[in-house]
């Protein structure tokens, strides 16, 4: 069966510090991968998605970037965090070819102080 991991689970970082969040998927090959952010009490906003190694599509211009160095690894980064980057970051995956269903990881709670 497929499993999606995210780490760390929680993170407190000062303004101006760098960020690296990691997501990995097990049990499937060539997944589509997604990064979402959920602000407190709000819906999920799609940040990035990737359909293959090295391919990244950005949905919202902002202080963040994403990379996919391996087939089942997706990384969310920032060079300098802003207060507004605080939130709950969720990684999701779907089957590569035309599947609509997306499955979410457990999330990372980021607090920028």
């Amino acid at each position, binding site marked *: 069966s497929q499993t999606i991991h995210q780490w760390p689970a929680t993170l407190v970082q000062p303004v101006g510090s760098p960020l690296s969040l990691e997501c990995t998927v097990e049990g499937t090959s060539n997944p*589509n991968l997604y990064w979402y952010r959920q602000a407190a009490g709000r*819906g*999920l*906003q799609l940040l990035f*998605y990737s359909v293959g190694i090295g391919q990244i599509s950005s949905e919202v211009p902002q202080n963040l970037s994403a990379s996919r160095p391996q087939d089942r690894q997706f990384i969310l980064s920032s060079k300098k965090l802003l207060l507004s980057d605080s939130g709950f970051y969720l990684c999701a995956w779907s089957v590569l070819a035309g599947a*609509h269903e*997306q499955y979410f990881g457990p*999330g990372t709670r980021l607090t920028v102080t």
Partner: protein
Amino acid sequence: QQQVKQSPQSLIVQKGGISIINCAYENTAFDYFPWYQQFPGKGPALLIAIRPDVSEKKEGRFTISFNKSAKQFSLHIMDSQPGDSATYFCAASMETNFGNEKLTFGTGTRLTIIP
């Protein structure tokens, strides 16, 4: 631009009652409409989904009703139980230029079932 509007923001229902959450969309390119359930501190879990060529889909106590002409869909939870207390998100999916699907979410409904 809010492409999927969800209401109500919060909902309190008595145990055994029917919970109803409504969503409306604007973009006719959407081709799949899932509902997700999220418990505090957890990632959302896919609950039930429907395609626009179907007017209703039922899975256990959960039913989606879909009105294509009105561009509206709703989630009905029958015989609501305290364990159903969670935040529910509707979403709409469309295909990207790369052939995958991307989701646009509603703002969520916090459902509380009281004994």
